[in-house]
């Protein structure tokens, strides 16, 4: 073993290695989101293959209304913008404003989920009716799970940005940045899902 004393070790460490390093937690989250996106990619590939090679039995219902999903798309796109406003407000140290924008974002997310529930209950098919129905529920449900997690995250971030006493400040804004990145990802997935599932 070594004979270096701890004092010598510390000074040597300061000489050789930088005291600070880049925060790579967002990099890790982005990598995770790529992985998560691949799960969706698998689902999309399965859906498109089913659609092109598996004809549905006679008399199957697969019509969906476009009004609610379009409203949902708008809700999520607006919420991405409001989350961005919350982030810039925090950077300018305006905790109150940031909190307000976060609350609006969370409300938009929850409104999306409620609207999705309305759509589920008004649809003329159930989970096991046919292949299209199963894939529809699997895709939207898996996405809805992501929105639910995101909404919970936003509410936690909202609670933590309160001033004084919250843990998230303009100096320590990683949790907000992480939730924002995740939320943009979920919105982006919805846009792809909307195009593939409703418009195609």
């Amino acid at each position, binding site marked *: 073993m*070594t004979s270096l004393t701890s004092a*010598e070790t510390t000074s040597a460490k300061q000489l050789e290695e930088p*005291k*600070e*390093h*880049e925060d790579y937690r967002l990099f*890790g989250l982005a990598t995770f989101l790529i992985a998560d996106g691949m799960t969706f990619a698998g689902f999309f590939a*399965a859906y498109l293959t*089913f659609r092109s090679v598996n004809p549905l039995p006679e008399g199957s219902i697969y019509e969906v209304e476009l009004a609610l999903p379009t409203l949902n798309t708008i809700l999520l796109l607006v919420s991405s913008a409001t989350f961005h406003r919350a982030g810039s407000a925090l950077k300018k140290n305006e905790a109150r404003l940031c909190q307000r924008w976060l609350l609006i974002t969370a409300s938009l997310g929850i409104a999306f989920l409620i609207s999705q529930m309305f759509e589920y209950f008004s649809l003329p098919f159930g989970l096991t009716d046919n292949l299209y129905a199963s894939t529809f529920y*699997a895709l939207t449900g898996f996405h809805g799970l992501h929105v639910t997690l995101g909404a919970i995250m936003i509410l936690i971030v909202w609670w933590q940005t309160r001033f004084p006493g919250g843990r998230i400040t303009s100096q320590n804004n990683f949790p907000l940045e992480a939730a924002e990145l995740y939320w943009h990802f979920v919105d982006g997935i919805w846009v792809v899902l909307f195009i593939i599932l409703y418009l195609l």
Partner: protein
Amino acid sequence: MTFVPSSEINNNSPQSLQPKGWLRYFSFSLDHKVIGLQYLVCGFVFYLIGGALASAIRIELTSPISDFMARDVYNQVLTLHGTIMIFLWIVPVVNGAFGNYLIPFYVGARDMAFPRLNAVAFWMIPPAGLMLISSYFITGAAQSGWTAYPPLSITTPAAGQIIWIISVLLLGGSSIFGGINFLATILKLRRPGLKLMQLPMYCWAMFGTSILVVLSTPVLAGTLILLSFDIVAHTGFFNPSLGGNVIVYQHLFWFYSHPAVYIMVLPAFGLVSEILPVHCKKPLFGYTTMVYSIMAIVVLGLVVWAHHMFTSGTPPWMRLFFTIATSFIAVPTGIKFFNWVATLWGGKISLNSAVLFSCGFIINFVLGGITGVALAQVPFDIHVHDTYFVVAHFHYIVYGGSVFVIFSSIYHWYPKFTGKMLNENLGRFHFLITFVGFNLCFAPQHWLGLNGMPRRVAEYDPQFTFVNQLSSLGALLMAISTIPFLWNIIQSIFKGEVAGDNPWEGLTPEWLTSSPPPVENWNGPAPLVTEPYGYGAVKKEALDETTTNKTESPKQTE
């Protein structure tokens, strides 16, 4: 961009609250070296269980009728053997164990990028493994093989299959977390001044492997979630009687499981590239081509999956594409093999156990690679599909390839892990019976497959009896081979010769610290090793510079 003081990263972790001594190996330790050894030992325990199951399979196959086990028990044993060996032994050990132990050393860091995530990833493995094995005793294990092809996996008893799915989802999650950690560590945590093209080859192998893990494992997770819906909620994604499509399952499954083969062998390639130069005292031949070969294998490995499906009614254009793409993989793999042979060529080779196992790997993997190229050709594949030829090919890749490298790596790094040397004679004896037993077990299976013996079945045509008994004799030798190995690793901890810091006189950074290393890897600053293979070929000044750069050089301590 936010910046975190590294002192906080290093000292904020509650290492001081962790148990000391051997107890820390049973704790939620954040030390990458402890986690690496946790992976290794845990994986080895599962290897013994999977090996016992393999022995049971070979005992059953000594006679053409199913007399040793009932047929459904045989199916369960087969499924457990495959799942345990792949998901609980090879993947966690070549990635998790050696990756966690070595990568922070190689990039000059004091721990992985995300130590807590790292510990979480390890601790997902024992519950998943225990759940998988206990399902055999409680509900009956899954019976549909490690591929879980529907509709078989939908029609066999549901409870075992669901437990299998949950276990594999946990293991896949652990693997993804590990992959994220390796990518962040290799890309972001490199010591300042260390360039990517100066990294030891194992870093590149883990970089490529982690890309494959992150891109392909989630697809398997999604597929298994859909499969569990088919089993539990009676949806019809993969159930033809409900209008579903089994081929979609096969595509999605092999989109993960073909890259999974590279997830098992690419790190092994990296480990061999570390071991051979040290024991030949020669630089690794063709470093740059090695790096490009790894990245070529990563890219090609993602677009060859349908060669597992040539008999699933794939259209001709798909067969053509996947045959050509698969054959192309032989090129970067061949480059790597010529580079290893060139590394050995004219080197001062010390034929110790580590080198013997590495050379055994080269021989076995070439044989497995040749049958692999043969299997990629559609006419031949249609003939031998689902026969023992495929079993033989696969075991030449994962046992003759990956497991031989794991043994080689244990012989190579055991002195670093424990500070003690292993018994060389026992090691050579271990190699001899493993190599003879392995080839005796699996080489005859090529003949069995070519003559049409189907795999995954407990019974077979009596004309194959003798060759099957020959194969079982080889399996017996392989089973016996674990005894000298286990004896060697256990008694060497207590009675082994003291190894010193650098018994092999290696130049890679893990040898430039004490054995076993201190908690923060180096007591002084992290050494900057820009020539990890600078044996002899570099000028003397450069070598001296490397030696003076390291703080705890063995020559200085002695």
